């Protein structure tokens, strides 16, 4: 500090920088999703409502959610690996996942005859557990966070079954 003028300059600069950082933080917060958006991020579905091999599209956080109750024939086709992707309630198995292709986010379509998904955008395919069977998608459809509540599923909350799926790499965090 060579002079009074330097000190004044440094002090002014320091406080201005501090104020600037504060303003930047406020701006960052202003762009955050609103509390009302966050609290609307939960959807409850009742798994009793679904029929075997009939794809139903629900909506969660503005995204399509595929629910497919697996039939006996479908279960026979699963492997240990793909079975981990299913949610089991009272002996029934359900595929619940975000219906956006993991390649570039298009919505794949389900064909109940061939029991698989085809993404029209770039030709990616998935089986009935939404596991990828044909590239370009890098992985199966992502599974949304869920908590099992009786026969109901609360999407957006994280229950122990979902945590297990995350831990063993069955799905990525959505």
């Amino acid at each position, binding site marked *: 500090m060579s002079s009074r003028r330097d000190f004044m300059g440094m002090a002014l600069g320091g406080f201005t920088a501090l104020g600037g950082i504060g303003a930047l933080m406020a701006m*960052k917060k202003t*762009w*955050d*999703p*609103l509390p009302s*958006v966050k609290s609307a*991020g939960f959807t409850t579905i009742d798994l009793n409502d679904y029929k075997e091999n009939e794809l139903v*599209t629900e*909506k969660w*956080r*503005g*995204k*399509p959610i595929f629910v497919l109750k697996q039939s006996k024939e479908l279960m026979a086709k699963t492997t240990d690996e793909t079975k981990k992707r299913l949610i089991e309630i009272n002996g029934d198995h359900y595929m619940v996942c975000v219906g956006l292709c993991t390649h*570039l*986010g*298009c*919505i794949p379509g389900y064909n109940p005859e061939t029991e698989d998904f085809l993404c*029209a*955008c*770039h*030709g990616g395919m998935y089986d009935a557990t939404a596991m990828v069977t044909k590239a370009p998608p*890098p992985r199966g459809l992502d599974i949304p966070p869920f908590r099992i509540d009786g026969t109901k599923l609360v999407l957006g909350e994280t229950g122990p079954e979902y945590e297990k799926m995350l831990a063993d790499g069955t799905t*990525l*965090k*959505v």
Partner: protein
Amino acid sequence: MAHFEKANSIGEWLDQRIGIETLKKVMQSEYWIPKNINFLWAMGMVLAATFGILLVSGIFLLMYYNPSVDLAFDSVNYTIMTEVGYGWLWRHVHGVGASLVFLIIYIHMFTGIYYGSYKRGRELIWLSGMLLFVLFSAEAFSGYMLPWGQMSYWAGMVITNLFSGGSLHADGFVEWIRGDYVPAQAFLSRFFMLHVLLMPLLIIGGIVFHFGTLRLPHVNNQDGEEVDFAESARLWKEGTTESRRESKVIPFSPVFLSKDVFVMGVYFILFFYLVFYHFEFAMDPVNFDPADGLKTPAHIYPEWYFLWSYEILRPFSTNLGLIAFAIAQVIFFTLPFMDRSPNVAPANRRGLFHFWFWAMLADMLVLTFMGKLPPEGIWSQIGLVAAITFFILWIALPIITKIEKKL
């Protein structure tokens, strides 16, 4: 109190107070432009005029546009297009203008590359111009969101998804940009703000800066010749027919500007021909379906002016594609430093650089065409080769310009 004499005219009165005579000299009558130029040198003013038209048409659209996810689509496609008197005119002028402004930007850029107008004192002109290109891109993208049709929504989805950084899975960052889990009200409102306020402000600032960077180095000429501006200006100001013929320069205004206005005249014939008879090229049919987060259009592609960089993203795996895309977005900024040759001359006198110029132009055209086609079979092969060629050309640039013979 400063000393003021009584003024004898409004001009003198203003000159005493804000120095308009000096301003006029600096910006117009003594801002010297070389004579040895062609119509490509008019593209700057053509761009300025197009920006003006976008601004005016935008102001009129803004009066009826409604930035709400429930009303936006109808406010454009019903209110503006069918109810507002001449609303269709503003919309078609705005859409066609947004497309043509990029055509002229690309011509303007490649003119600069061809004549070497980006080095030996002109680096800042190039850098500020590239900054304007980025700002115009952001302006175009944010504007594309506003009609809230299917292409708006899904382009918004795909482009904001790019910010998750592939395997980085920065989904929190993507949600921060959107203000929601998917593009929704918060997203539309903030992109509306960006499109009508922040981006135009930055663009206007960028244009002023771009003009400023031009003032001292002056514009280049067809031979890259170093002009003695002081001597040429003296000859012009001498005012005789002889001396003006001998001078290598003309004043920006009114002499050069009158050439600009002629080129603008030709350009606006094309512009309004498109506005009145072929506006549909700037209006994607898919965007006439309202946004629907539960239905993807079969084929998502950007407007034509983003296709070349989109095609660089597409043929690679997710991560590699993102890195290639990011590099392609900024690589043109480095041109003045990648070109190691001191020659300021048209490309046809610069040996290998001549080949480089046409190869780069052709490669970007191929990328553009492939970006529009579905990524299947032979098309994705050609796209991949063109994307790799793009990077090979950039790696080759410092080498071929280093060995270039000094003119």
